[in-house]
């Protein structure tokens, strides 16, 4: 009887310790983070049904390290002419009339010691869905990738090496779609 009680206590202690270690290993990983936004913008309607290209709204991704969230005037490019009226569209119009920028909640956030440049990846031909998941099916954006260094390195290792042989290099330089060259040393991202 007493020995069984000791075993139960030890088992409980082991379970709690296991949970603690697992939880601590996931600190800083926000996979599955799907916060409520001030305006419930559905990507599945805009990017999915209407097939608006990602870079139409997030145009800064072509030239800047930030992809950027579109200004309210980008929304009004279409919505000033559309008859569709919902509560959320009304919130957008109200924000513009009152002159208050919309405070969106950041979903994908990397720590400050990492330098991630969107334009490098977009211009190398990396599709948005490779890191951000199937955005065109989401009604509310959530983070689907862990965005850990190991996860980034999985792709970087695959695309790191430029060929050194002359023939391969000639093929690479003459090919119309440039192959991405991903840095694999520490200073590629931590500088």
């Amino acid at each position: 009887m007493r020995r069984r009680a000791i075993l139960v206590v030890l088992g409980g202690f082991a379970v709690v310790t296991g949970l603690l270690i697992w939880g601590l290993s996931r600190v800083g990983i926000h996979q599955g983070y799907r916060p409520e936004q001030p305006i419930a913008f559905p990507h599945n309607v805009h990017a999915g049904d209407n097939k608006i290209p990602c870079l139409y709204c997030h145009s800064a991704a072509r030239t800047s390290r930030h992809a950027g969230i579109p200004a309210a005037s980008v929304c009004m490019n279409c919505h000033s002419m559309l008859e569709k009226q919902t509560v959320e569209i009304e919130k957008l119009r109200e924000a513009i009339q009152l002159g208050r920028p919309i405070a969106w909640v950041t979903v994908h956030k990397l720590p400050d010691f990492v330098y991630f440049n969107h334009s490098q990846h977009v211009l190398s031909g990396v599709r948005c869905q490779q890191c951000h998941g199937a955005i065109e099916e989401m009604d509310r954006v959530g983070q689907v990738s862990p965005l850990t260094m190991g996860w980034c390195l999985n792709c970087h290792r695959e695309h790191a090496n430029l060929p050194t042989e002359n023939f391969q290099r000639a093929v690479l330089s003459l090919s119309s779609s440039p192959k991405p060259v991903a840095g694999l040393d520490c200073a590629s991202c931590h500088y």
Partner: protein
Amino acid sequence: MSRDAKTADAARSYHEGRREELVQIRRSRTDEYWKSPDELHGRTRSSGEFGGALPAPGDIPPAEATRRDFLALMGFTLGAASLAGCRAPVQHAIPLLESSDQIVPGVANYYATTCGGCPSACSLLVKQRDGRCIKIEGKDD
């Protein structure tokens, strides 16, 4: 027996006698120990810790919850509630209201301007990013 042995024997028997006397004194003194006048005159019921029978489970009334217990419970509840409410802080991304093709977040704009520190009016090159001037350099013409 030798003279020394006789003395040793005598000493031993003397000491043994005295020891027996001591043992007898101790035995008799135990009977005469008393801790209260009642006990001295033989009026106590028993000599155990519980005078009489051991207490039955129904005899002791359950202890009421004290103020101390209430405060302890409140303290633990407060701690548990604050621990359960811990969340990472929400970060906001606030874009412009009116977009501009000149202003791209994260891309720097350079402005040629003049320094107003003294009448020399030296030319300056100002690097501005996200609405903030982050580098001012002199600009040689």
